[in-house]
């Protein structure tokens, strides 16, 4: 029988280190100023007519021929001032509630890929059963605080109603906070309603606390499409959280220069934020940064790059100046769980964490530029996240930690293995890895010469075998199942 998988306990992380600031204050001002100029001069295209009407009523300049909306900077800044700098996200298990903002740090699993993969069966279209397995692992891995709104598509289910099966699985297989699939009004509304049922919140009290967050991607450059707009409006009107994340890849969807990309990213966030605050003053929003670059030889997205890390650090400065929580990501372009996937992820994570991201989306499981959710990458990333969590534990400096007695006790050239100080501390002194091997070559060879991906394969299978489903009040379970059945009937009848 395999030994239990070693993990850190579930804990809300706090980043007490000073952020790395790579821009001067003047440069941050210049980027934000450029963003406001973009919104004043060119504006952003809102494809959804209702949002244009709302913005027009709020004072924006809407051109119905081009669908472009231009914003006076005073309007943007006035609306921005209404957004909270921090908020709580509730979970079905209250000990898994999350704080978003200030120095808090939340790791969210990979969300949205088209495919799934593992070492046994390779890259493939996923099924609902595989989605459920992935969710069980997200629940099992303590370092992951939040589920992402679906790790990949369940291609064996009809597209118009598969979100309902996902939400039911989220709320039964996990007791952590789970994101919505914010693709349109109904998908968003279904998630909110099912979470309201699961957490036993009265309809009138729904807006008091956020139960649900969703990622809203603008169609960079400078466009917001109809499903995403519907999600923004639905989330804001019901008091839920919206993570506004432009998809700015320098060289293709934004200028080839990082300053221009950051200006455009900020402009898009501010435009959507203005809409959100127009729908509901004080709507909970997050500044999402996904700025990276493309490979200019092939046009392919390049992720986990030095540019990505710099953009993450700079985005942190911009978000703090705007007094908004920051979202970043753990990304890689690698197609398999190899060295590239690890070093690009590490690059991303350093940028995210030292940029003081409050939410790291895609923190575990992302592969192939976001096209694939990998069971093995979920584990290798969990290892890196645990290492980051441990890294965030500050060095204590006191008499005990300075250990002068132990230093005096060991003669020059001796060792510390047997000192009282070592014996008192060794069990908790160092991080114990989830995945890394510390075996010498012979032992490692004897154990099968497994590389990191192969070891990760064993670990996720063990976690799955040991998974324990969190308890759920049977009455609530029944209510959720009824809701799903009712909504599927409505969808089949064409009610959307």
């Amino acid at each position, binding site marked *: 029988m395999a030994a239990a998988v070693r993990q850190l306990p579930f804990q809300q992380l706090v980043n007490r280190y000073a952020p790395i600031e790579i821009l001067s204050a003047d440069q941050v001002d210049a980027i934000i100023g450029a963003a406001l100029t973009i919104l004043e001069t060119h504006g952003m295209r809102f494809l959804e007519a209702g949002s244009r009407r709302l913005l027009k009523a709020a004072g924006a300049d809407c051109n119905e*021929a081009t669908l472009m909306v231009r914003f006076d900077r005073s309007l943007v800044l006035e609306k921005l001032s209404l957004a909270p700098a921090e908020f709580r996200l509730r979970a079905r298990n209250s000990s898994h509630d999350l704080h978003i903002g200030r120095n808090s740090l939340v790791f969210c699993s990979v969300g*949205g890929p088209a495919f799934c993969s593992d070492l046994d069966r390779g890259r493939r279209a996923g099924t609902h059963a595989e989605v459920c397995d992935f969710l069980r692992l997200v629940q099992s891995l303590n370092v992951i605080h939040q589920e992402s709104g679906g790790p990949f598509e369940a291609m064996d289910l009809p*597209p118009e109603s598969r979100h309902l099966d996902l939400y039911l699985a989220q709320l039964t297989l996990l007791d952590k906070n789970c994101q919505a699939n914010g*693709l349109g009004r109904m998908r968003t509304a279904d998630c909110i309603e099912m979470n309201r049922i699961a957490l036993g919140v009265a309809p009138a009290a729904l807006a008091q606390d956020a139960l649900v967050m969703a990622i809203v991607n603008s169609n960079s450059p400078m*466009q917001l499409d*109809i499903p995403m707009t519907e999600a923004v409006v639905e989330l804001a009107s019901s008091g839920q959280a919206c993570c506004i994340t432009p998809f700015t890849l320098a060289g293709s969807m934004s200028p080839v220069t990082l300053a221009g990309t950051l200006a455009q990213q900020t402009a898009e966030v501010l435009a959507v934020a203005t809409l959100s605050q127009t729908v509901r003053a004080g709507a909970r929003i997050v500044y999402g940064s996904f700025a990276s670059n493309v490979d200019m030889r092939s046009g392919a997205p390049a992720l986990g790059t030095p540019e990505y890390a710099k953009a993450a650090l700079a985005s942190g400065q911009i978000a703090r100046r705007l007094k908004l929580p920051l979202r970043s990501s753990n990304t890689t372009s690698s197609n398999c769980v190899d060295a590239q996937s690890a070093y690009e992820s590490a690059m991303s994570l350093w940028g995210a964490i030292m940029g003081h991201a409050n939410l790291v989306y895609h923190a575990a499981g992302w592969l192939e530029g976001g096209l694939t959710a990998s069971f093995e990458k979920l584990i290798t990333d969990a290892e890196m996240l645990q290492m980051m969590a441990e890294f965030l534990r500050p060095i204590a400096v006191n008499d005990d930690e300075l250990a002068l007695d132990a230093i005096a006790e060991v003669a020059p050239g001796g060792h510390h293995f047997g000192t009282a100080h070592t014996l008192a501390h060794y069990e908790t002194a160092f991080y114990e890895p989830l995945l890394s091997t510390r075996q010498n070559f012979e032992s490692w060879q004897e154990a099968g010469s497994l590389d990191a991906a192969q070891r990760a394969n064993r670990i996720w299978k063990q976690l799955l075998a040991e998974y324990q489903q969190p308890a759920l009040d049977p009455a609530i379970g029944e209510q959720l199942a009824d809701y799903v059945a009712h909504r599927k009937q409505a969808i089949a009848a064409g009610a959307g």
Partner: protein
Amino acid sequence: MRPTLNILSPEMISAILVEAKKILAEIGLEIRGAGLRQRLLDHGLKPSPDGQRILFAPAVVESAIASAPKSFTLYDRDGRAHAELGGSNVHYVPGSSGLKIMDHRSGETRLANSTDFVEYARLCDGLEHIAYLATAFSTNDDIESRVSDAWRLYMVMVNSKKPVVSGAFSEHGVPRMVEMMQLFRSDRAELVAKPMSIFTVTATGNFRFGEDSCQNLIDCVEAGIPLEIVPVTLMGLIAPVTLVGALVFHCVDTLAGITLTQVVKSGAPVLFGGAPATFHMKAASSPMAAIEAQHLNVGYVAIAKSLGVPTQAYMALSDTKLLDAQAGAETMTSAMLAALAGVNSVSGPGMLDYVLTFSLAKLVFDNEICGQCLHFVRDIRVLEDLPAADLVSYLRQNDHLITSPQTLKYWPKELYLTDPVFDRENRENWVKGGSKDAYQRACEQVDRRLAAYVPIETDARIDAELRRLVRSGLEQQTELPVLPPPPAPAAAGAAPRRGTGRRTRV
């Protein structure tokens, strides 16, 4: 300098025009519409001795040519200038007059219906190299024939803002269609000033204009709708089998049509057009993609250009039954000839089978061909490549020019990147991609583009009025056909939502 083709000498053009004008003056044309015939008589034209035809005096014809605009602008539904028809500007437009659709999902060729038409309009709306739409094919039995012209116009106007080439199917069809278009303008004067359509008037051969054509011509000219005069010159059947004689016959019809428009209203915009074909002596068919028909097309275009009249032609099409090698060869040949000749409005993309069958896959394929032809006829300019010493020096230093400043500056515009419907993969990647042929690739692009279609908004009151206008012409039928809803919009740059429900989040 623009790559150009002209197959006729000035002397030959002059001789053909002299002969055509002689026929117009001495034999004349049968003008079957009483109203138009009376207008010609009122204008001073004389009837033939037997009273059957109208004689077109050379001075009247020459005056008409002189008063016809050398170019005109087409506007979109919102009143924005969209296309300038004149000079060497080339615009590709879907062919018209189809009855059937080649269903890209089933592969079946069957009678087309309104659902097919709406998909066509949405597809065409997003095609980069198709300048404007046409009411390309009939929707057959799903609506009464007396309003089927207006119904097709309605489906175009609520699914695309691009201008449209259309026409009326009956003698009294134009006024209803004019009323519909006027809903997108402040008044009739604005519709005249900013036309959003071209209507087709067909000359059916044998030196004759039928009743419908005559009345439609009057109605269109008075409503300010530009016309394309389209003789169906059938070489070997009702026109000489030889090129020069066929050109004379063709010019008789078009010059007569142009004269008719200018008699109704001097300065009326009109295109010197045509839909010539040969008569196949063995198959008894009339291939419009025949090489002789192309000869006739570029010949009459050269004549029209010598007169300063903008042009239209049925080219960039194929007579084969499916998207095969013949389709590619015929379409590319005629599309390129049209581009080189500078045809202002090229009707044809999407058409197969003697303009009887429309294919969405073929339309997507043709869109790519049109893009390549338009690229070919761009002006040839020196772009920091003459003298070439700097480029030679760079190559000698670096062994390549991929990253030279001149390459980086010019490749995005000078290298034409094809649509995925054209294969540019190496064999290994092509095999990995499923070894798909052009038809399969085109079908995939149809689905992709339809899923990516972004609906246009039409004011609910205008939409209701448009539908009322169509419905007002129904006799037996009580309801209009049900149209498919637009697809849920897809994310820019992301996979289409329809079909898989996949949309990658970042």
